[in-house]
Structure formats: C-alpha cells, structure tokens
C-alpha cells in the first residue's frame, strides 16, 4: 500500500500533518483537540448528518462539518471561535427539543454523548414551550429495545447494519421531527452482531435488553481483557460492580475485532455469576469421607493419582486439559504430567461449528479461545487422537485415574465420557458445575472462568493476547495453576508457587523460541502476533 501524501495545515493555530484524505475531525482527535460529535464514528463511513462537529475552515464562508471535510494543504481550522460555539449551542438546542431528558432512568446515563455534549457545549435553557413529540418504546428484536423518544437520528445504528453486519434491518422512518429508528414490520433486528448498535448509539435510544437496569455505568470498573467465546479473541472491556461482572463491551483492536464483538461473546461471563456455579471443594477419600478444605486439594489429587500409579503403573493415569485454559495453565499442566510420567495427555474442546461471515466481521467456526495454545503446548494430537486413546483406555480399564478440566462454559461432557469417568478408580475434576456420577474416590474442584484469571491465550490467527483479572475469585476458590504447582512441589519439581506472570517468563521462549518479549506485560493491551496467520493451517474455517 502506498502511503498517502502528507499535507500540512493548522487547527487553532497549531501546525498539524496528516495524510491527504483524512477528515478534519479525525486529524483533530489524533492531535488531542476535542471536536464534539454524534454521528461520526471512526468505524463507520462519515455521514455529516448531526451537525455537531461544525468548525470554521479558511476555505469556506460558513461553518463546515469536520467529519466530511478532508484536510488540505494550508487549510486553517478553528474549533473554538464564538461562531463555532454558537453553532454548537444551536445544534444542541434543536436536539433537545423533543428529547425526554429522562436521564435518571436511562441506561445510557453516565456514558451518554448527549449528556456530555450538552454539559460541555449546550445552551443553559430551552425556548421550547410546545408539547414534545412522542415516539414508540418497543422491541426491535430479541436483544435490543428502542426508546424512540431518546433517538437523535444520527444513523449510526443504520449505518452499522448496512456497512458492518450487512443485514440492513434498521432504518429511519418518516421524516422531519417524526423521524425515528425502526425495523420493517416482520424483519426484526436479529443478527449475531446486533448489540454493537447499542454500544454505538450515542444516546439511550437503543438498549440491551440483557443489561437493562442492571447497573449504573459510573459504578462499574473496567478491565481490559479478551473474550473467551471463540478463537477470534475479541478485545473487550470487562465491566464489574461489587465484584460481579455486569457487562462486556468491545475494545478497539484493528488487528482483531476493530470496534466490534458478537452477541454471544457478551454472554461468556454468565457461568461465573450463575447460581449453579460450583463453589466448594469435595475431596472424597476411597472410604467415603469428604474434606472441603481447599488447602488439601493438591495433596488429595496427588495422593489419588499416586495410588493409581502405585497399583497399576504410571501409564494408568491421564490428564485432560481444555481449550479454555490459559497458556500458563496448560504449561504447568504439561510439566506436571511429564513429571508423573504418563503419555496420556489430552484436551477437551467445544465442537467446531459453522463460521459466520458478515460484511466487515467474521465469527470463526472454532468456539475455543485457546485451541492453538493447546496445540503448541500439549501438542496437536491432544485434541483428538489422544482423547480417543484415553477414552478407550478408560473403557478397557488400562487407564484407572485421571485429572480433567471441565471448564468449557456451557459445554457438557458427552454421555460416553460421563459414564467412562464414573468407572475410574480415582478422578479429579475441575468443573464449573456440580457433578454427579463421580467415582467414590474423587475430587470435585471448582474451576475458575472468564474474568477471573491472569495469563495469555493464543487466538486462531496466532496472536498472543492477555487475559486480565476483573473480578476476584469467590472466597472459597483457589486458582487451578496454584493447585497444579503445589502438585509439582510434591513431585519436587518446583520450589515455590509463582504467579502467571512468572509462568509466562518460564514458558515464553520454551514454546515460541522466536518470541521477542520476555514478560507478559509486554503483550500490552493489543497482544502480539507470535505466528504468521497464513502459516497456520488451523486458520481455515470449518464449513
């Protein structure tokens, strides 16, 4: 791609350079100069309809919309003159003519561009004495509801449906002050990206039905992390209040998900807050006594597995991880089972599904966030061949003890696995839910899940990205990697339990010799490409 020519121009007297063709608003934002706006969104084509971004330009007599005005050599832009201020006030007064100002009960309150822009640039009163227009409040589909009165007709949502999802459900109907967003009767807003329209709606007109009245946004704390709903690894912000995740919203990463994420990804935190979540340890001995002290988990598992290998040899034990574990967890898991001297190492993954392709967004067919991590750390055979061998080993009783990870969100173990596992002499299982049908001698251990762990995952395109802790673990639960490390200690393989950042240091070059960074912090907020996407055969989506 040839670089566009740089042009020199001025904003408020400040010299700025930007590639020819750049719109003034973008250049201003990049230079840290505030230009208020509504309809402009960097991920959509500019529309110039809301008039909020008016600025003065030396090549025009009247104020121009900076979102549709390209920069030009020698252009002089003014964003803070009296004319501009007056124009902004006028635009905002018109915008508030029919706006209900129901901020106290509006979900968008606190992150609403209309609130912010009126606060910063608006008039201090309204001359409107007529009754306000009333518009419908209704469902637009199964995920999104419309509060028509709040709509400022910026057309971000309709452009999203045209340009990004390509599904075209939303339209502005009627005209003038009757204009409002709607769907064509019988064609509701139903696409896998629908909730992005809620994120980009500058006001509270489009509302996520799932999040409605769940939290006041200013009470939530944001943590940058990644979605673990599939192999794409969309960059997200996890928003929690009082240690409970309330909402997940996309975070911009041009290399992965741009400004968007899918609707399903917004649900990945549900198992963490589910009422059925397993919170207690149940460490059962062969004679049926139950211990619930998490401190004893590592030795209980270790003794269980040891007993099996004493009775039947080390080859009689197996370890099954999952494609939902972080690279650090997988790494300790691998070392541990190497130490236990068994070749039976597998990993569960959710079955492939059809990839979905939208105009500007792909949802890959692999619903596992760290399948590639499993391939690199445990080996490709772990996901299929080894699993089959382990299953038949359990069925023919050559394998008698196992440690498995059952943390794949809503995915349940297939029936043949459930019955096979109940035949074992000893089973340790990290799970998100209570499990029945366990052998007498077993350890049922709560698994950790989305938003709770620190570490890294390798997405389907070979990009290593950072998971961060948004919510602290429920008090009763310990991290799996700690328990695995304690077991390593019992084997004499590790002197002390270390955090994931230290595991990353150990793991990094051992797994990716060409890795240029040594600490997890260096992954930053956008991750780094550790493998070339085209060399990666797994990239091909399953049809």
């Amino acid at each position, binding site marked *: 791609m040839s670089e566009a020519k740089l042009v020199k121009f001025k904003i408020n007297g400040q010299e700025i350079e930007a590639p020819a063709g750049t719109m003034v608003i973008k250049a201003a934002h990049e230079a840290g100069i505030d230009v208020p706006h509504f309809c402009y969104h960097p991920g959509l084509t500019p529309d110039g309809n809301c008039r909020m971004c008016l600025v003065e330009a030396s090549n025009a007599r009247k104020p121009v919309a900076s979102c549709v005005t390209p920069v030009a050599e020698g252009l002089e832009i003014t964003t803070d003159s009296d004319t501009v201020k007056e124009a902004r006030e006028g635009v905002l007064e018109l915008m508030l003519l029919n706006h209900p100002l129901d901020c106290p009960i509006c979900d968008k309150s606190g992150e609403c561009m209309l609130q912010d822009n009126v606060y910063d640039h608006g008039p201090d009163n309204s001359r409107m004495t007529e009754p306000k227009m009333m518009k419908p409040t209704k*469902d637009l*589909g*199964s995920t999104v509801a419309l509060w028509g009165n709040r709509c400022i007709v910026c057309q971000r949502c*309709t452009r999203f*449906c*045209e340009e990004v999802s390509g*599904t*075209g*459900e*939303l*339209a*502005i*109907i*009627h*005209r003038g002050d009757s204009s409002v967003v*709607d*769907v*064509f*009767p*019988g*064609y*509701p807003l*139903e696409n896998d990206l629908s909730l992005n329209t809620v994120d980009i709606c500058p006001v509270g007109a489009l509302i996520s039905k799932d999040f409605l009245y769940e939290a006041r946004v200013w009470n939530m704390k944001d943590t940058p992390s990644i979605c673990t709903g599939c192999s794409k690894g969309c960059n997200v912000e996890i928003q929690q209040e009082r240690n409970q995740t309330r909402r997940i919203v996309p975070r911009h990463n041009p290399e992965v998900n741009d400004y968007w994420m899918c609707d399903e990804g917004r649900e990945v935190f549900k198992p963490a807050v589910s009422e059925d979540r397993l919170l207690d340890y149940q460490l059962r001995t062969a004679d049926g006594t139950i211990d619930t002290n998490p401190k004893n988990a590592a030795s209980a598992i270790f003794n269980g597995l040891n007993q099996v290998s004493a009775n039947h040899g080390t080859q009689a034990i197996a370890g099954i991880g999952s494609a939902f574990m972080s690279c650090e967890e997988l790494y300790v898991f691998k070392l541990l089972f190497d130490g236990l001297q068994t070749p039976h190492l597998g990993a569960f993954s959710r079955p492939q599904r059809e990839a979905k392709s939208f105009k500007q967004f792909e949802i890959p067919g692999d619903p596992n966030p760290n399948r590639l991590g499993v391939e690199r750390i445990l080996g490709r055979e772990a996901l299929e061949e080894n699993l089959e061998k382990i299953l038949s080993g359990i069925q023919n009783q050559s394998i008698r003890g196992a440690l498995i990870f059952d943390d794949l969100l809503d995915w349940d173990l297939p029936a043949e696995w459930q019955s096979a596992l109940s035949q074992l002499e000893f089973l340790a299982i990290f799970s998100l839910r209570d499990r029945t049908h366990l052998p007498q001698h077993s350890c049922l251990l709560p698994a950790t899940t989305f938003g709770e762990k620190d570490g890294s995952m390798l997405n389907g395109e070979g990009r290593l990205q950072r998971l961060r802790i948004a919510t602290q673990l429920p008090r009763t639960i310990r991290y799996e990697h700690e328990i695995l490390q304690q077991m390593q200690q019992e084997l004499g393989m590790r002197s002390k339990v270390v955090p994931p950042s230290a595991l990353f240091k150990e793991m990094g070059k051992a797994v990716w010799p060409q890795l240029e960074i040594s600490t997890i912090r260096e992954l930053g907020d956008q991750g780094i490409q550790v493998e070339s996407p085209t060399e990666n055969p797994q990239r091909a989506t399953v049809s």
Partner: protein
Amino acid sequence: MSAFQEITQAAREDERVEFSAEAKKKIEWIYTRYPNREAALLPVLRVAEKEFDGIGAAAIDCIAREMGLSPGYIYGVFTFYTHYKRAGEGKYVLQVCATLPCALRGCRDVVHHLEDKLGIKPGETTEDGKFTLKKVECLASCDTAPVVQINDDYHENLTLEDLDKLLESFE
C-alpha cells in the same frame, strides 16, 4: 434463528405477493435509466403502488426481493414520502395542500368541508373504502391555490361548490 424471527417470518410468507410480468418488464426498463438500484427505488415504488393498489408490508417485501435491497431500507425511503398510496387507502385519495399559499387561499375551509361531508379526519378512510383524506405539504401549484390532488389529477382554484360537484362525479 430466534423464536421472535421465526414467528414474524412465518407471518410474512402468508402474505407474499409478486410483480406481474408486465410490471417486471417496466422495472427492468427503469433500471436502465439509473446508475444503480438504490437510485431506481422511487420509480419502482410508483410501479408497485399501481400494481398492488397501494404499498404495504407485502409490497415492500416484494420490492426488496426484486431489487436486492433490505426491506428496512425501502421502508425508510417509502415512509419519508407522503405521496405514495398506502395499502388500505380508499379508491380516491384526496390530498389537500396545506402549505402557506393554499392556507392563505382557504385550504382549511376545504379540509373542514371534506371532513363534514365524508365524516372522516385527515389520515382516515371512509368506511366504504371510497375516500381517504390527507393533508399534505406543497404540491408546487401555489399560483392556482387552493389545490387538491385526487389520485393522479390536480384540481385547482377550488371553491367549495366545485368540490361538491367533483365528489358527486366519483363512482
């Protein structure tokens, strides 16, 4: 597909309509006169208006399939304009211009007269399905105000007597 979508799509299938061969030919010809399909939408809506005697959900669905546009987009364009005949409107659609010059020349009297005579308010249709009354914006015939457009014809410099005669002449 969610339950929501299934129900609404099923409803839509029941009411499906299609363009006649003749209308299709006309539409093909319209396409040749515009740079792209979006641009041809207004004249195609005109064809549909005649074809289906007013445009409703089924007609928009049919146009969407014909033109490869989303029904939402067509719905947005269609509702922007007041001058297309909507499904369910009467045999005669009386569009009274209510913009300033007509207002100065007595269009309110015209509207009130029609309201009394037909027993309906603007936006309504008589029970026998014969007349629909609408107040519309400028019909671009200010020099002959007051103006009423009835179906495709303009009736200009109207007096209330003219109006009565006109109404009687309709079947």
